C-alpha cells in the first residue's frame, strides 16, 4: 500500500515537472500567415487566460463590428482578426474603454490622447506635430497663416475630408466643435479660453481663429493657438447636435455621454472592445487617401489589455505585440538576443528623449521651503545610477546633456547657453558638497539621531509616485538612498495611481514625481511655464504644472515675455536666465531624460517601422501619434 502511494506520488511529481517544462518551452514556431479556425493544439486549455489570438484566429469573424450582442462564451473568438492584417500594440490601454467622447473628463480610450502629438487614428486634428523637426504637418487642414499682428489665424481645410458617414467635413464642424466645448465648459475649453476668443467659419473650407486680445491690442498668447490646431479633435456638427438632443443640452450629461455611436473622420473605426482587448478596423472609405495616397496598411489595430508591464513585455518578446509603448528595462539585452526586436535608434538611448521625469518639491512644507535643502537633495542623488539601473541606459545622462530647462533634443539645446549655466549645474552624487551646503546654511543634526533639523523640525519627507511604475519607483528609491547619505530622511510611498493622482494634483505631497511638458509646438515655453509659473498656485486638480506652488517674480515675468519674442538671440537669453533661476532655486529637479512614448518594435509579422536615418522623417511615436501616424502607410509584411 505504502509502496503504491509512493510510486503514485513520484508519478504525480513527474507529471507536474514535465507539464511545467512543456509550458515553459519556447513556442518559436513561425506564426501561421493563413488564418486557422481552431486553436492550435500545442496550447493547453488552462493556458487560455491570455486572450491572445495568434493561436485562435478566426477567419470567419463577423465584419459588422456589432460586438454587443455576442454571447459571453464567444468573447474569445469575437474580435479575433487575421494576424497578418492586424498590428498589435501594448502600453496604451490598461482597462476597458469607458467612452468615445473627446469631451469626457476621464477618457480611458486608446484612440483618444490629445497631447502635443495628438493620437489621430479615430478622431483627427487639423494639423499633426512632428517632434523630429518641430513642425506642424497638414491633416484635416491644408495650411494655416497668421495675420500680421498675430491676432487672427486663418486655417484652410482639405476639401476632400469627409466623415465616416460619408458627409463632407467643413469649417462649420470646426467652428461647432469649439462652440460645443465652450457651451459645456469641457477641459479643452478651460485650457484654451484665456487665449482663444472665437473660431469662425468664413466659408466651407476656411476657419478663422481669433485670439483673446490684451489691452494693447496684442494676442494674449499666440503659441496657444498653434497648439490648439494640433490638439483639438474635430467633431461632427450633425452628430454633436444629435447627442445634445438626447442629453437635453445638459453639460454634465454631454461630457459623460459615452458616444458609442460616434462619427469620426480618422482612418480607423471601432470594431471590437471589451475588458480583454480593443480592436479598431480600417475605414476603407477613409478620405485620407487624398492626402496620403493610399490607405494605412494594417486592416486592424489591436491592443490586448495586459495585467501589468511584465505581462505586456512578455507578449512583446514573444512576438504577440508589434509596437510596444511600454517601458522595457531589458530592451538592450532583448535586442542583442533576438533578430526580430528593434528600436528607433540602433544603440543607446534607443529612443528620442523629449521629457524629463522630475521630482517636485512641495515648497510649502517646512524644510522644503529652504532652497538649500532642495538643492542638497538634488546634488546628492546618483543620476548615473538612475540612468543605468532604473532606465536601463535608455536615455542620455546629465553628463552628456547637462541640466537646464531644456530637453536633450538638439533644437532645444540650441536655445540655451550651456556655458552660462556651468556654475549652476550639478553632476549628482556630490554627498560632500550637499553636506557642506546644509552645514553652511545652519541645517544640522542637533539631537544626534542622524537626521538634520530646520527650526526644530526633522527633515523627513515622503517621496511618492504611482505603484507599478517600475522605473519611477526605482528612481525614487535611489533618491531615498541619497537622502540617507546626507541626513535627510526620505521614505518612498507608492500608492495606487488614482490615489496618487488625487494627492499629487491637489498639492497634498512632500516630494512627488511627475513629468514635464515634452515636445510640442509650444515647447520649451510650455515646459518652463509648467516648471515655474505662479499661475498654478492655489489651483486644485492641477494637472498643468508647478505642482509644488513655487513662486518667483522674475521667472513669471520672463514666462510672460517669451510668447511675443521672435528674436532667437533674445529668446536664448531668456531661456538661459530661466534655467539659472531654476537651477539655483531648485523648485523641482529632473531625475532623467525620457521618451514621451516608447517605440520598440518586434518585426515578427510587420516591418517597415520608422528608424533613425531612414530619411522618412517619421517620428517614433508608435505609428499612432502626431506625424508618427505616417508610419502606418509604409508598413509591410515580413517576407
Amino acid at each position, binding site marked *: 500500500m505504502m509502496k503504491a502511494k509512493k510510486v503514485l506520488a513520484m508519478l504525480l511529481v513527474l507529471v507536474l515537472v514535465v507539464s511545467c517544462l512543456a509550458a515553459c518551452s519556447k513556442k518559436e514556431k513561425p506564426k501561421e500567415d493563413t488564418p486557422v479556425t481552431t486553436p492550435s493544439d500545442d496550447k493547453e486549455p488552462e493556458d487560455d487566460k491570455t486572450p491572445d489570438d495568434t493561436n485562435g484566429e478566426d477567419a470567419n469573424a463577423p465584419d459588422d463590428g456589432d460586438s454587443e450582442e455576442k454571447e459571453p462564451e464567444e468573447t474569445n473568438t469575437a474580435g479575433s482578426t487575421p494576424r497578418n492584417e492586424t498590428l498589435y500594440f501594448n502600453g496604451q490601454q490598461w482597462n476597458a474603454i469607458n467612452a468615445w467622447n473627446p469631451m469626457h473628463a476621464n477618457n480611458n480610450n486608446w484612440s483618444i490622447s490629445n497631447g502635443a502629438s495628438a493620437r489621430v487614428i479615430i478622431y483627427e486634428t487639423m494639423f499633426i506635430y512632428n517632434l523630429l523637426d518641430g513642425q506642424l504637418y497638414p491633416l484635416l487642414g491644408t495650411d494655416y497663416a497668421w495675420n500680421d499682428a498675430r491676432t487672427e489665424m486663418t486655417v484652410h481645410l482639405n476639401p476632400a475630408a469627409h466623415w465616416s458617414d460619408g458627409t463632407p467635413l467643413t469649417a462649420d464642424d470646426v467652428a461647432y466643435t469649439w462652440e460645443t466645448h465652450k457651451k459645456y465648459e469641457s477641459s479643452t475649453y478651460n485650457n484654451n479660453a484665456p487665449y482663444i476668443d472665437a473660431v469662425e467659419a468664413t466659408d466651407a473650407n476656411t476657419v478663422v481663429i481669433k485670439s483673446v486680445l490684451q489691452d494693447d491690442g496684442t494676442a494674449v498668447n499666440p503659441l496657444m493657438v498653434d497648439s490648439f490646431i494640433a490638439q483639438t479633435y474635430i467633431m461632427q456638427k450633425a452628430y454633436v447636435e444629435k447627442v445634445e438632443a438626447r442629453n437635453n443640452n445638459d453639460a454634465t450629461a454631454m461630457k459623460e455621454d459615452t458616444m458609442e455611436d460616434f462619427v469620426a473622420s480618422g482612418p480607423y473605426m471601432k470594431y471590437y472592445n471589451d475588458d480583454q482587448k480593443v480592436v479598431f478596423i480600417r475605414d476603407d472609405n477613409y478620405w485620407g487617401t487624398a492626402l496620403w495616397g493610399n490607405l494605412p496598411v494594417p486592416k486592424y489595430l489591436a491592443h490586448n489589455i495586459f495585467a501589468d508591464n511584465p505581462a505586456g513585455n512578455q507578449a512583446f518578446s514573444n512576438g504577440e505585440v508589434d509596437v510596444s509603448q511600454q517601458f522595457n528595462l*531589458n530592451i538592450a539585452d532583448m535586442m542583442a538576443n*533576438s533578430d526580430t526586436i528593434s528600436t528607433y535608434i540602433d544603440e543607446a538611448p534607443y529612443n528620442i528623449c523629449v521629457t524629463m521625469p522630475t521630482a517636485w518639491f512641495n515648497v510649502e512644507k517646512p524644510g522644503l521651503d529652504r532652497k538649500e535643502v532642495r538643492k542638497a537633495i538634488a546634488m546628492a542623488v546618483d543620476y548615473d545610477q538612475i540612468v543605468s539601473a532604473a532606465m536601463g541606459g535608455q536615455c542620455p545622462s546629465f553628463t552628456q546633456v547637462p541640466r537646464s530647462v531644456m530637453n536633450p533634443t538638439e533644437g532645444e539645446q540650441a536655445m540655451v547657453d550651456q556655458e552660462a549655466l556651468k556654475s549652476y549645474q550639478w553632476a549628482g552624487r556630490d554627498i560632500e558638497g550637499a553636506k557642506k551646503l546644509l552645514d553652511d546654511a545652519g541645517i544640522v543634526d542637533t539631537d544626534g539621531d542622524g537626521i538634520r533639523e530646520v527650526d526644530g523640525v526633522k527633515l523627513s519627507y515622503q517621496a511618492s509616485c504611482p505603484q507599478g511604475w*517600475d522605473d519611477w519607483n526605482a528612481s525614487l528609491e535611489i533618491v531615498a538612498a541619497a537622502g540617507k547619505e546626507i541626513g535627510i530622511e*526620505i521614505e518612498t510611498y*507608492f500608492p495606487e495611481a488614482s490615489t496618487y493622482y488625487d494627492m499629487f494634483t491637489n498639492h497634498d505631497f512632500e516630494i512627488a514625481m511627475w513629468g514635464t511638458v515634452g515636445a510640442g509646438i509650444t515647447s520649451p515655453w510650455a515646459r518652463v511655464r509648467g516648471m515655474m509659473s505662479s499661475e498654478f498656485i492655489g489651483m486644485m486638480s492641477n494637472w498643468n504644472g508647478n505642482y509644488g506652488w513655487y513662486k518667483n517674480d522674475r521667472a513669471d515675468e520672463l514666462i510672460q515675455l517669451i510668447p511675443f519674442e521672435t528674436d532667437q538671440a533674445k529668446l536664448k537669453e531668456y531661456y538661459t536666465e530661466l534655467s539659472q533661476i531654476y537651477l539655483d532655486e531648485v523648485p523641482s529637479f529632473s531625475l532623467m531624460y525620457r521618451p514621451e512614448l516608447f517605440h520598440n518594435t518586434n*518585426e515578427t509579422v510587420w516591418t517597415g517601422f520608422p528608424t533613425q536615418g531612414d530619411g522618412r522623417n517619421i517620428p517614433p511615436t508608435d505609428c499612432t501619434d502626431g506625424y508618427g501616424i505616417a508610419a502606418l502607410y509604409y508598413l509591410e509584411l515580413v517576407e
Partner: protein
Amino acid sequence: MKNQLKQVFHSPRFVIGFVIFVFMLGMAVLYPLLVPGDPLEMVASSSYPPGTYISLADTLESKQYGLDLDITATRLNKLISQEDKDAMVLWLTKYRGIAEEDIPVEDSVEMVHFWNEHYDPEVEQKGLTNAKRQYYRRLASRMATILETKDIIIATKNPETGALEESNTISFNTYTNVKDIASRRNFVLGTDNFGRDVLKELTHAVGTSLKMGLLAGVIATLIGLTLGLLSGYLGGLVDDIIMFVTNLFTVIPSFVLIILISFSVSQSARGVMLVGVIIGLTSWTWTTRSVRSQVISLRNRDHVNLSKLSGHSLPRIIVQDILPYIASYVVMALILQISSAILAEAQLSMLGLGPSTTKVATLGLMMNWAMTAQAPLAGRWWAFLPIILSIALITFSLNLMNTGLDQVFNPQLRD
C-alpha cells in the same frame, strides 16, 4: 532531558532540518562578519551576472606574461556560432548573389575573411527587417575584429597639448594573472537591479528574516499559549469568551488582517520589527485552539486533581502540572509559527507593504525588486533564484525539524 535530546538527534529528519537551518543561520551570522560593509550600497551600475570583476585600467598596469596560445581559434569558437554562419551564408547568397558552394563554410578563418570582404551595410537589403539589419551590423562589427592580431597601443592624452602619447603596447600573446590585479570584486551571486551585491544582501536578508520570524513566532506562541492554557484549564465563561475572540480571528484570514494593519501604519514606522509584531499579533489563533484542546485532556488527570486538592495556586498548577506535558508541542508550534512568519513577511514585502527598501534588506523586498525589474523575463536568475531557494530552505528546514520532533514526541508516530 538529555535522553530526549539524544532521541531528537537520532531522528534523521530533525538532523537534516537542523543542519540546513544551522547552515542558513551560520551564513547569516558569519558572512556579514567576514565581509563587512553596507549590504544596501549600490556598487554596480545595474544588474550584472555573477563573476569576478577586475579593473580594466589595472590590467594595463599589471605584470605581463607571454603565453603562446592560439587566440584566434579560441575566439572563433567562442564568438561564431553555427547560426551566425548560416546567417552569413543567407545574406551573402541573397544580397550578393554569391552561390552557396563558393562560400568557404568549412573553414572558419576563410569564412570570416570572405564575409569581411563581401559584407556591405550600404547594399540594398530588400525584405530585410530592421532588426535583422541591426543583427548583421552587430555581426559584422564582431567579425571585423575577430581575426585582428595586431598590437594594441595604449596612449594617454597630454593635458597641455592634447596630443596622444604612447604609454604602453599590448600584443596578442600578452596575458595577466588575475591575482596580480589590485582592483577586483567578486560577486558570487552577481548584483541586483540597483547594483547591490546579491550575496551580501541575501545574507543580511536571511538574518533579518530569521530575527523577524523569531519575534513574530514568539509573540504568536506566547499569546496562543497563554490564551490556550487559560481557556482550556479554566473552562466556563472564560473559555467561551476566549474562544469567541479566537473564532473571530480565525474567520478573518490573517493575511488580510496583516495587509490592512500594515497599510494603515505609515512606511516610516514600518520597520522589520514592527512587521514582525504585526504578523505575530495576527497569527496566534491556531496555537490557542490546539493548546486548549491539549489542556482540556490534561486538566482531569489525577496529578492535576491532586495538585488542586493540595491547594496549589492557578499559576502554579498551570506552570508545573500542565505546561511540561505540552512543552514539546509548544516548541513545535513555535517552529511552525516562525516559518509561516518568514513566508508572511516575504508576501507582504512582495506587495510593497513591507519595510522600506533603503533601510533594510529582507527576502521579500529583494523578491519585490527582482520582479519589478523583470529579472525572470530577462533571464537574470541570480536576482531571484537564490532568494527563492533561501526562503524554501529556511521554511523546509524548520518544517523538517518540526516533523522530526513530532516523530519523537508524538506517541502515535513513535516507532
